[in-house]
């Protein structure tokens, strides 16, 4: 077989960038929790990637790309018998690695939303299941030749497949666990439990952004069209910028001061929003998509507080709400001349693509919501989801891992 060295190189390089996003997630989450839970949330970030790779090798790839079928693939367990990748000229091992790091990204989104109260062993169980079954099924529907692919549902790099899947799983986890002790008052009003290290959060967001160039531009799965790759790179720089600017502006107007952690959430929101449409929209569209994402992330936080859902890092507003927004944006801003299945609503294509996008994201997220609810329920019954009150108060670092993240530092802890 003839292999294309440049396409292969591009996919591997992009995959390595996406791999590094794991560090970004780790830093964001570490910075946004309290010192007493830092080692625990980092441990979850390390292990969910390791379990994702394992699960995606054993089950995930077979379900996602193993064979045709509307619902799921059924062959190629342990990658056995799979010799060709779906991308011509690219060895299957490179393609597998690219897909495996995406599975890892979906899995790790949940760690932040369930931080500071979910049992470590319960989290390990969850992370294997999502990468082995749940993420691959949605991935098969959209990218593996499933029923949504047949409908021409367009999710270029995974606003729905990766981010909304992870975000909805995070929402289910956060609802099942309930809020952290002290997060809401008896009358339901929210309290502040502030993160302990904003520099780490900022570093994490830029590592994520850095990796996202691989996430989006690598999803071309080749370098045959440098114009498309270049447009994606530009859009991946534009949308998060307006995301951060608008999130900052709304927070500034509403709360009186520009809040660093909300501005950073806005940048991530813009990245999630541009993930699905990055290849099929122009620069101005990307700016608007990012701006809306930045606004949505602020209101998402407000809604979660109103519903008394405790999401310590804002994973749900960033990944779930903006994953849906990015997917719908394809139906609004997409251009057939750039590779969208149909022109979007704002470019004279009418409601057809928007309808397909809405159907696709709704069906995928309902599937994830129902299956994850069951998964968390079963984990709760067998091993228990939440740590004891005493452990939560002392911190998961000491009780679950027997070590402190900042041993030797004088740290003022109030709860």
């Amino acid at each position, binding site marked *: 077989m003839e292999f294309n060295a440049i396409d292969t190189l591009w996919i591997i390089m992009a995959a390595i960038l996406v791999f590094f996003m794991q560090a970004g997630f780790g830093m964001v989450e570490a910075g946004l929790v309290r010192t007493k839970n830092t080692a625990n949330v980092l441990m979850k970030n390390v292990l969910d990637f390791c379990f994702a790779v394992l699960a995606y090798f054993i089950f995930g790839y077979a379900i996602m790309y193993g064979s045709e079928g509307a619902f799921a693939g059924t062959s190629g367990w342990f990658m056995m018998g799979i010799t060709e990748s779906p991308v011509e000229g690219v060895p299957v091992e490179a393609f597998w690695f690219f897909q495996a790091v995406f599975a890892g990204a979906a899995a790790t989104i949940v760690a932040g939303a369930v931080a500071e109260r979910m049992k470590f062993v319960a989290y390990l169980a969850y992370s294997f299941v999502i990468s082995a079954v749940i993420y691959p099924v949605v991935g098969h529907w959209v990218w593996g030749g499933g029923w949504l692919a047949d409908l021409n549902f367009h999710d270029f790099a995974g606003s729905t497949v990766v981010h909304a899947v992870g975000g909805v799983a995070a929402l289910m986890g956060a609802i099942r666990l309930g809020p952290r002790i002290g997060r809401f008052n008896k009358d339901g009003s929210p309290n502040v439990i502030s993160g302990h290290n904003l520099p780490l959060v900022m570093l994490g967001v830029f590592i994520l952004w850095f990796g996202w160039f691989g996430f989006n531009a690598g999803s071309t799965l080749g370098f045959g069209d440098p114009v498309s790759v270049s447009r994606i790179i530009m859009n991946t720089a534009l949308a998060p910028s307006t995301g951060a600017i608008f999130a900052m502006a709304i927070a500034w107007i509403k709360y009186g001061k520009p809040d660093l952690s909300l501005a950073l959430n806005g940048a991530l929101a813009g990245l999630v929003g541009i993930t699905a449409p990055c290849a099929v929209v122009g620069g101005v569209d990307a700016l608007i998509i990012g701006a809306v994402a930045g606004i949505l992330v602020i209101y998402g936080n407000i809604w979660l507080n109103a519903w008394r859902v405790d999401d310590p890092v804002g994973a749900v507003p960033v990944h779930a709400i903006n994953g849906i927004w990015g997917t719908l944006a394809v139906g609004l801003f997409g251009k057939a001349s750039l590779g969208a299945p149909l022109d979007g609503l704002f470019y004279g294509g009418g409601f057809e693509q928007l309808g397909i996008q809405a159907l696709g994201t709704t069906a995928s997220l309902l599937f994830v919501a129902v299956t994850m609810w069951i998964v968390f329920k079963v984990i709760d019954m067998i091993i228990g989801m939440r740590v004891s009150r005493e452990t939560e*108060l*002392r911190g998961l670092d*000491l009780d679950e891992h*027997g*070590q402190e993240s900042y041993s030797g530092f*004088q740290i003022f802890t*109030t*709860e």
Partner: protein
Amino acid sequence: MKMIIAYIRPEQLPDVKDALFEADIKQFSATTVMGTAPKTEQRMYRGVKREVSLFRRVRLEIILHDEKVEASMEAIAKGSKESGGAGRIFVTDVVDALKPWTGERGEAAL
């Protein structure tokens, strides 16, 4: 004029603070200190056993009029009761005080 010194665990501070506020005691300070406990604790670090004998504690200092001493001790006890109780609560005499920007001395400076 007396000073209350109380040792509690960090996780008890929110409840103790609320209980003190409820008793209308709203002037005090809290610092993190390290203190011993009746029992030491064994922890593993990278496979090596380690005996831990100093633990993080919060030290509260409250300086108040004599008649509020009982109320503040009760509030600290009440606030920490649910999570195992306070370590110790001490009361000492305070000899004098000065509020520099008004020049008030003694009890008037509180």
